[in-house]
C-alpha cells in the first residue's frame, strides 16, 4: 500500500530540522564535539580560583592576592598532570628556550613568581642602589650571588620541580625578600592573574591531577580530575586556610562546581 505523502513530508521535515539543528549547534561556541573529534583536537579545561579567608586565621597579606567581591586569587600556579604513569600526549613543538627577567626593586623581587620550562633561564637584575643578593640553597651547586646596582646574573635552573617544590629565592642580606621559580617539563601550567582564571587547551580525555600552589600564602592543593571526557568544564575552586601546605586538606579532592561566571 502506498504511504501517504504527508507522512513522507513530515519525516523529511523532521530530518531536515534535525540536520539544521545540528548545523546550528556546530556553528555556536562551546559545542560538545563527538568523542572522536575531541580526541584528535583535545579540549579546554578551564577554571577559576577563589580564596575564602578565616576570621580566626587572617591572611594578613591577602589584600595583594585576593581581588574583588568574587575573591579571585592571583599569583597561584596551576599545573595539570596525567594520573598514574601516563605522560602528557604529543605536545606542540616547544619554542626556543626563553630568558625570564627577575629584578630587585624596593627590596622586592619583581616579579615574585616565575613559571618556566626546563631549559629556560632566569636573568636576575638589581635596579636599586642597595646591595642585594640572589640565593637558593636547593640548587646544585647552591646559588649565592651578590648583585650591586646595575649588575645581572644569568641562572639556569637544573631540576624540574613542578608545583610541589618550587625553588625559593631569597637575598642573603634582606631575608624578607622572597621569590619562587617553578620549572616544568611540559606546557600544562599557568600563573593566575587578578581574575584567578586558568585554562588548558588541547587536553585529551582521561584522568588527571590538578596541582595548585600559592607560595606567598603557603597554600597547596592537589585534586583529581576524573574521567575528563573532553567536554567543556568550568571549574570554581575555592582555597582557604584549610589548604595550608602540609595539611591533610592539601591532598583532598575538590568538588568541581560549574560556573557561568567565566
Amino acid at each position: 500500500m502506498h504511504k501517504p505523502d504527508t507522512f513522507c513530508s513530515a519525516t523529511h521535515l523532521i530530518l531536515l530540522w534535525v540536520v539544521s539543528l545540528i548545523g546550528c549547534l556546530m556553528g555556536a561556541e562551546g559545542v560538545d564535539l563527538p568523542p572522536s573529534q575531541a580526541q584528535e583536537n583535545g579540549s579546554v579545561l578551564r577554571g577559576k580560583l577563589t580564596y575564602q579567608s578565616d576570621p580566626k586565621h587572617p591572611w594578613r597579606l591577602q589584600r595583594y592576592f585576593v581581588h574583588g567581591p568574587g575573591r579571585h586569587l592571583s599569583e597561584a600556579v596551576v599545573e595539570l598532570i596525567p594520573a598514574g604513569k601516563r605522560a602528557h600526549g604529543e605536545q606542540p613543538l616547544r619554542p626556543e628556550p626563553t630568558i625570564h627577567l627577575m629584578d630587585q626593586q624596593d627590596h622586592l623581587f619583581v616579579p615574585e613568581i616565575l613559571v618556566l620550562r626546563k631549559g629556560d633561564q632566569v636573568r636576575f637584575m638589581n635596579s636599586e642602589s642597595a646591595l642585594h643578593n640572589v640565593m637558593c640553597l636547593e640548587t646544585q651547586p647552591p646559588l649565592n650571588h651578590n648583585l650591586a646596582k646595575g649588575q645581572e646574573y644569568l641562572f639556569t635552573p637544573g631540576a624540574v620541580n613542578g608545583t610541589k617544590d618550587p625553588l625559593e629565592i631569597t637575598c642573603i642580606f634582606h631575608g624578607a625578600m622572597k621569590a619562587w621559580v617553578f620549572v616544568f617539563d611540559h606546557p600544562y601550567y599557568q600563573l593566575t592573574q587578578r581574575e584567578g582564571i586558568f585554562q588548558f587547551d588541547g587536553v585529551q580525555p582521561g584522568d588527571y591531577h590538578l596541582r595548585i600552589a600559592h607560595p606567598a600564602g603557603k597554600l597547596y592543593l592537589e585534586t583529581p580530575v576524573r574521567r575528563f571526557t573532553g567536554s567543556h568544564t568550568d571549574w570554581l575552586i575555592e582555597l582557604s586556610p584549610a589548604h595550608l601546605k602540609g595539611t591533610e586538606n592539601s591532598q583532598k579532592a575538590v568538588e568541581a562546581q560549574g560556573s557561568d561566571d567565566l
Partner: protein
Amino acid sequence: MTPNQRTIDSKPIPFMDRRAAIGRSLQYAALTLSMPTWAAFENQSSQETLVPFLDMPRTRPNRLDWEMLTDWITPQDQVFNVQHYGMPEIDLDAFRLTLDGLVNKPTVLSMDQIRSMPKMEQLMTLECSGNGSSKGFMDAVYNSRWGGTPLAPLLQQCQPSSEATEVVFYGADTKEEVLRPGTNRELKIEVPFGRSMTLKEAMALPLLLAYERNGAPMEHRNGAPLRLIVPGYYGVANVKWLNRIELRDRRYMGRYMARDYVTVRAREQDGEIIHEETSVGRMNLKSIIARVTQRPLGQGKVALRAYGAAWGDGTPIERVEVQLNDGAWQQARWDESSQTSPYCWRFFWMDLGEVGPGDHTLISRAIDQKGRIQPSAEDDEIALKKTYWEAYAQWPRQIRIES
C-alpha cells in the same frame, strides 16, 4: 608560545578581554579596601575603609605591616632580620658566652647558667638604622618584650680592671674581611661581627642578655640563643648570636663601628663645609603615618583619619603633629588603648576632617620633651647627611580619594 602555555604576560582570550578591561578600570576607581576587624585600633569605626598608599610596594612576610598595624607588641611573623655575615650555625649544647679581657675574673657561661641568673624583661622598639632610607625599606622596626638577664651585674661580678674603658660585644657570625683591597697593603682577616660601647655606658644603660622574645624562645634569625639588647640604640648595636664580651683599654674599631654604619654629615663652619663622621648609635626621634582610613560623608566627600607610631631613644615624646597637604600642623591624639614604656613606640591617631576627591599628601612629625623636632628631608640635618643610615626624616604619604 604554545596554545597550552600562557605566561603572566599573555593576553586573555577574547570574551575575557571585555570583562578584564572593565575590571581593571574599576581597580583604579575603587582604591579602598575594607579593613578586617582584627586589624582595627580600638577606637576605629567599622565604617572606616583603608585608603592604600599610592606609591608603596607590597609588604613582605617578616616585615612590619604598617597598613594592618594594630599590635603594640609586634607579632613574630612581622619581625625583620638583617645580617651581614650570614646566620651562623650554633650548637646549643656547646654554646658558651665568654667574658674576658681586662677583668679580674674571666667567666665562661652556658645557656643553662645564664637562664639560672635573675631574669628581667625589657620592653623596647628596635629599628634598623637603614629603616626609612627608601620606600622599599620602611618596615624594619618592631616592638618587643625581651626576656633575659641584665648585663651590669654580670660585668660587676667579672671585676673590670681599673684600665678597662671599652666593652666589645662579639657575635658567632664571622667573615673574611679585606682591608685596603686592591692595594699593595691589602690585608685579609677573619673577624667576628662586633660592636662596642664605653664601659661607663654599658654599666649605665639597662643592657640585657636576652634569650626570649614575648615570652617565647627567641628565633635563630633574631639572634638565638643569646642577643644583646641595648634600649634606645639602633638594631646594629643589638648584637645577635652573642658569644663573647671583651673589656679593653682602647676603642674597638671593627668594620661595623668604624667603617660601615658610619653617618657622614656636612655642616658649615666659618664659611666652609666640613664633614663629620659618627658611628651609628642612639636612635633618633621619628614618627610615621601607618595607615589612612576614610568613611563616607555623602556628596562625594569623605572624612579621613590617620593612624601612626612615634619612637626614639627613650626621651619622652611630647606630641606628634600631622599635616594634610599644605595645611597647618595639627596635634594628633595618643592611642590610649596601647601601652607606654620609655623605650617603646607610641601609637597616635588624627581626624583630618572632610577631604574631597583627588591626590593628597599626609605627613607626621614628632616633638620630644627636649624640644627636638623630627626634621623634614629639606632640613639641613637630613639634607646634609651624606649616608643613608639613621633615616629619620619625616615621610610623606600619598593617597588618592576617588570621586
